[in-house]
């Protein structure tokens, strides 16, 4: 089943703009960053404008150089007062699947998801409690 591509597309220009703002946040000049990645400054400049496509090798170098919460590199920036992360494509796929269900199907899916969330919360509490017991020697 295919997903609506327009929902997912990240135009090269957007990526370029994010690269530029990330570079500026790090107070790096184009020349400095280009040297770290191993490309020409003019190529980096074109990449920031969305005109230059990078090889996978250089893309990995960029991701490594920034050593970031890598998703921030591409995902939309969230406002400071909104700590939730942006919907990933995986999240959108789940939404896409859920939207195709009938109303009763959705209810079942919701119940299952709620069950899973409760179960994981219980597991986390149990693990935390075990750790606490070990630390206090009880």
């Amino acid at each position, binding site marked *: 089943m*295919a*997903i609506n*591509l327009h929902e997912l597309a*990240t135009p090269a220009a957007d990526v370029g703009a994010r690269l530029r703002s990330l570079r500026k946040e790090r107070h790096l000049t184009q020349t400095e960053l280009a040297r770290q990645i191993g490309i020409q400054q003019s*190529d980096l400049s074109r990449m920031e404008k969305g005109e230059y*496509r990078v090889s996978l090798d250089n*893309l990995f170098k960029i*991701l490594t150089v920034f050593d970031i919460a*890598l998703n921030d590199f591409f995902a939309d920036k969230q406002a400071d007062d909104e700590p939730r992360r942006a919907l990933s*494509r995986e999240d959108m796929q789940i939404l896409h699947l859920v939207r195709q269900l009938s109303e009763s199907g959705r209810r079942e899916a919701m119940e299952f998801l709620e069950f899973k969330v409760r179960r994981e919360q219980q597991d986390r509490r149990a693990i935390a409690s075990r750790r606490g017991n070990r630390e206090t020697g009880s």
Partner: protein
Amino acid sequence: MSARFDELMRSAEAAFTRDDIESAAGLYAEAAEFARGEGNEDGADHAFCNQCSMLAELDRGFEQIPKLKEILLRSSNTKNRFLAAYCTAVAYDLQDDREKSWSYANRALELSDTLGEADLISRSANLAGTLAIRESKFDEADRCYQKALGIQENLDGYHRIVRAQYKDNLGYVMMCTDRLHKGIDLCEEARSDLERLGADHSLYETLQDLCYGHLLADNLDRARECGEKALDLAIDFEDDQVAKNCLFLLSETAVRHGDTFRARRYLRELTAYYPEVGISEEIIDVFLSTDLTSVVNLRG
């Protein structure tokens, strides 16, 4: 020219035809030495350039750049000057000096126009196109590949393979420049030519490009079929670049299919090619959460 020189040149060409590049390089070196001993400067230059061309096939030959430049400046033989410019461009490309490579490729293109030989014009146009596409200069690459493809005629087996490669190159440029379906058609044509000729060593790159095209066109099953075949062949032929590209494209295909489990499997294989990064779930998440098809240059 002496019979011995002709015989050495013929033997070298035969070695090249049967893919014995090392022997071909040695025979051309012998021919160059022999011609030099006989005072046959043109013959020596010609054989030397062919030797460099063989060394380039073996990813060697940049140490010959000064001698090639000397031929380009000194020789009054336009064909030898063409060969020298062409080999210099390839040698600089191997050194990753793109600016110089581009400059000599254009010099070769000018000289091939002067010579008017179809094969030389198409070879140098294709080289210039390949250098342009690496720099994401798609309009320039389009112009060069159109020229390379437009000029070929009366082809033997080897040249039919080369022509199919030109079709593939132009097809990929079209896919990157909003002519997706024309690009796919051209690459499909290249694919059937290469399959008919049994040219697996060229086929996998075409299949990679078809995977990309069908992915963009949302023909996900076709994209997967092409990508899987391309990946198997690229691994057989030890072409890491194409193998990595295929893993990236296949992961994107799986994501669009809604199969993130399979996508993660491809991406783990991809990250394994980058030991400095390691199998990083964080990087895998970047690829899963972002469509990078318009950011990555498969010929970069």
